[in-house]
């Protein structure tokens, strides 16, 4: 099974506003795909559909060989344990400390003794440079630290798919690069399939192999990340270079 994620003609609308109008996309196993596009074009919606957190109006979605459309919450839950997700605004549990947050996926998956879990959590926290702050509450952390706890939690259970929703949103260039270094180190270790959404195209392009461009509810371009700046498609070029004049219409939420 060479593709980890496959979407086929997926449609999704919210209060009669069509967000996705026929998205087809596949991510090869072990590959790293970036997803970019104008604001409110439905990037985060695709991520939620892949995790089965929401159901599409139409179309088929296959994740790790299983069709997830129409599945009930419990079987979906078991599949989700094989997917790690870094949420855009961190989604850290405010009733647990840092150690509790990172250990949570392992505790829920079961099959590991408490001290095995503790050891695994310890190594993950050291890998993201948070060795000293096990007992800190999420409210005491800076933006960058919350991001790193999110990364540790997403990768602690060695998930076969890892999804990053805007990993560098609101961070300065240096902090952004430090975050992407962590993502690259994780991928080198686990070779998990990666899907990353970002509006910071330059930083994203250095991390992923390929980039897909979502515009008006459909994937209009897909190509190697290295040459995204001079992509053949004029709309993509205008978007990536941030040029004001060009075919890309003024986008309204």
């Amino acid at each position, binding site marked *: 099974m060479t593709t980890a994620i496959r979407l086929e003609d997926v449609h999704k609308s919210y209060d009669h506003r069509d967000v996705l109008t026929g998205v087809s996309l596949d991510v090869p196993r072990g590959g790293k795909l970036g997803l970019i596009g104008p604001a409110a074009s439905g990037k985060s919606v695709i991520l939620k559909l892949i995790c089965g957190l929401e159901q599409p109006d139409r179309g088929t979605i296959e994740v790790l060989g299983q069709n997830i459309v129409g599945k009930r919450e419990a079987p979906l839950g078991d599949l989700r344990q094989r997917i790690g997700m870094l949420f855009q605004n961190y989604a850290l549990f405010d009733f647990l400390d840092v150690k509790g947050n990172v250990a949570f996926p392992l505790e829920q998956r079961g099959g590991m003794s408490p001290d095995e879990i503790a050891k695994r959590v310890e190594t993950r926290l050291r890998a993201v440079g948070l060795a000293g702050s096990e007992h800190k509450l999420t409210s005491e952390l800076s933006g960058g630290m919350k991001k790193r706890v999110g990364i540790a939690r997403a990768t602690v259970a060695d998930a076969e798919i890892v999804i990053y929703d805007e990993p560098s949103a609101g961070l300065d260039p*240096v902090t952004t690069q430090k975050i992407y270094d962590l993502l690259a180190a994780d991928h080198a270790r686990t070779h998990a399939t990666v899907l990353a959404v970002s509006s910071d195209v330059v930083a994203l392009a250095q991390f992923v192999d390929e980039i897909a461009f979502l515009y008006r509810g459909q994937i209009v371009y897909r190509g190697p990340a290295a040459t995204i700046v001079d992509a053949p498609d004029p709309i993509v070029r205008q978007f990536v270079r941030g040029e004001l004049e060009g075919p890309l219409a003024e986008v309204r939420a």
Partner: protein
Amino acid sequence: MTAYIEFKNVSKSFSGKPVLREMNLAIDKGEVMFIIGTSGVGKSVTIKHLIGLLRIDAGEIWFDGERVDQIPERNLAPLRKRIGMVFQSSTLFDSMTLAENVALPLRKHQGMAHHAALEEAKRRLAQVYMDEYADRYPTELSDGMRKRAAIARTLALSPDVVLFDEPTTGLDPISARRIDRLIRELAKSLGVTAVVVSHDPPSIFGIADRVAFLYRGVVHVVATPAELRASPDPIVQQFINGKSSGPMETPGF
């Protein structure tokens, strides 16, 4: 003789953590001054002191030859009419249309009748190319468009200085460059002094006259963008090129 806006030995700390350590900064009339630095270094904190949203612990702040950091809250109205501020979250009222939002300061300060204020508001929105959305509500628009409307509202009182708190953060490349061009245009055509807090390199090197680099609580260096790019200082170079490795401390990481 002090400069148009001047911070003298300004110190500020939050619950014991020092953010500004006797920092000095002088800004001339009519220039576009950028304040840059990594996330969490206290850029936004600096400009909020200028209009009394925060109070400094020590030091002095001068504006147009007059000391402003000791004015009590109830007498700050005249100063706030001369120094406007555009927040990162654009702070429009969701319960009012764009025109009503922009008309609010006109109604409250220039004693305009409601209809006259609405007409003037439409003219102000035209300055930021948003007049066709005058009767729409903020929640129906994209972040970039809300930001432009917020700029129109701040300009309604024709201030001498406008403070921008990370105007392009979180916007996709196209909307970000639109905001940059707008800031540059308004500064030059209206003779407004613009103080912009940002960590977005295309903005910094796109529209800044001068740049103040905030690091470890002090202004590390003040230079034109060209001087900055050529600066031998390793910390400045690491920030500009967004390198994760290097001597730079990142409190926000």
